């Protein structure tokens, strides 16, 4: 009973926040609504006892990805009026996608009517069961190669992004740290003996 109340409360907030993402006039508000979406999705995952995934969702998406996203959106000088111009042009495509999603929902419910329990509750896990350990055990045994492959792909993406954007422009007054570290005292400080001037 309590689980149902929690589910519907957080699901309502989630849907509301999702509507907020597309409806708000200010892009920064949209990003923040998206953050709220992720937080609520994490709570819904907690309700089906996927606490590792829930915490990682908050840690990775909310804590890192969305921070950078917010960063970029704040820096962009977006003209909101031009963004809203294309609404009628894209409306048919949006309607089509909405229709497809609704058909998919209906399909899931239809499968359920056939007797397959796709939306059934989760059986409670035994005491001391650690979600994190279970995910780790599968990830590093059965799926070790796909897992490592995904990591390598990400690494290549990082290296590529840096090598694409890193360039040395002439005339920049950047600091060369190794030169700064290599400086000795005698390069910078000179002791001079100043003659004392006459009595004031």
């Amino acid at each position, binding site marked *: 009973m309590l689980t149902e109340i929690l589910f519907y409360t957080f699901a309502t907030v989630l849907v509301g926040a999702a509507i907020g993402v597309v409806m708000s006039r200010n892009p*920064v508000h949209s990003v923040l609504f998206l953050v709220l979406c992720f937080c609520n999705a994490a709570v819904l995952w907690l309700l089906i006892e996927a606490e590792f995934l829930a915490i990682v969702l908050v*840690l990775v998406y909310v804590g890192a990805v969305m921070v950078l996203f*917010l960063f970029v959106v704040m820096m962009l000088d977006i003209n909101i009026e031009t963004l809203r111009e294309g609404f009628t042009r894209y409306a048919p495509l949006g309607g089509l996608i909405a229709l497809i999603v609704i058909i998919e929902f209906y399909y899931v419910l239809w499968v359920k009517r056939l007797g397959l329990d796709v939306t059934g509750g989760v059986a409670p896990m035994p005491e001391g069961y650690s979600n994190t350990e279970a995910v780790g055990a599968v990830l590093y045994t059965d799926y070790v190669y796909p897992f490592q492959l995904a990591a390598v792909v990400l690494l290549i993406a990082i290296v590529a992004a840096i090598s694409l954007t890193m360039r040395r422009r002439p005339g920049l007054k950047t600091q060369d740290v190794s030169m700064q570290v290599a400086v000795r005292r005698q390069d910078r400080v000179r002791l001079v003996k100043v003659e004392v001037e006459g009595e004031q």
Partner: protein
Amino acid sequence: MDHLNGMWAGIPANLQSFILTTLAVIGVMLAVIMAVAFSTLAERKVIGYMQLRRGPNRISLFGLPILRGLAQPFADVIKLLLKEFLIPANADRKLFLIAPLIVLVPALTAWAVIPFSPEFVLADINAGLLFILALTSLGVYGVILAGWAANSKYAFLGAMRSAAQMVAYELAMGFAIVGVLMAAGSLNLGEIVRAQAALPANGLSLGGFGSWNWFWLFPLFIVYFISGVAETNRAPFDVAEGESEIVAGFHVEYSGAAFATLFALPEYANMILISALAALMFLGGWLSPFQGYVPDAWGIAQPSFFWLFLKICAFIFVYLWIRATFPRYRYDQIMRLGWKVLIPVTLVWLAVEGVMVWLKVGPWA
């Protein structure tokens, strides 16, 4: 008394545990807030004496002359609460008001999974460490929003700096924590402390403070504390505040109660949290440093909250000491230290630790 006991027994068990949990939560919150109040005083006193001043020495507690200065935090709180709260004309009102709460709530919620003694922890969850990492990564939103919503260039510059810095140092911090996980084999903070106890079962012969994680994970310990200082935006990494260049950074437009909740309370609560985590993960938490050196029956060999408190105080003192000693880092130096020094150090030591685990050296024997 019997009457009260009778009333208590008459309450259903569900409600009983609910009342007890609520009381425990309120107790921990009050303790954290009091600790924050007195660490602001400690900061001013310690830095005062380091700079050959006396620090606050006027407002005495209970009117006793010997306690002069001890009531300073209460005077400060009353002053801040009574001050007028201004909202800039061009600010984004809603976000401007929400931002202090977004900083405050994670800073206080994280205390739910901290084990204070072998028996007492509010929520003994398996993924405790991940929970804390996730929550502390949320605090940066408050800082960014405070800077953005104020619609002021100094505040915005402070927010940008703070965001870049927090993202950079979170990685080093995460890697340092991975080392602790490899040593303890658990994400539960209580288990992490128990794995550091000088027990024959843990394969540790050094005893007492020599068996704690800091010994085998020394580079990670140092990296963790440095990134902790950077994560809390404290000196010498306080470019987000940078009063000499960008006035006061992200909280320049805040005043009164919102300033207290946005800046003072979360900053010090996070400092104490980082200190508590460093004590739990690397210095054996509530374990006694004399365990194994003196007979176990002695009082000073027993694990208790007292040891954790002492270790937290020591870390807070180091925080203040660092602030009184070092000048502020330049921004590019901060980024260089985070990405090019701390992260490689943690990666190398994780590899070393992996080899130690593989060869069953030290505590992994």
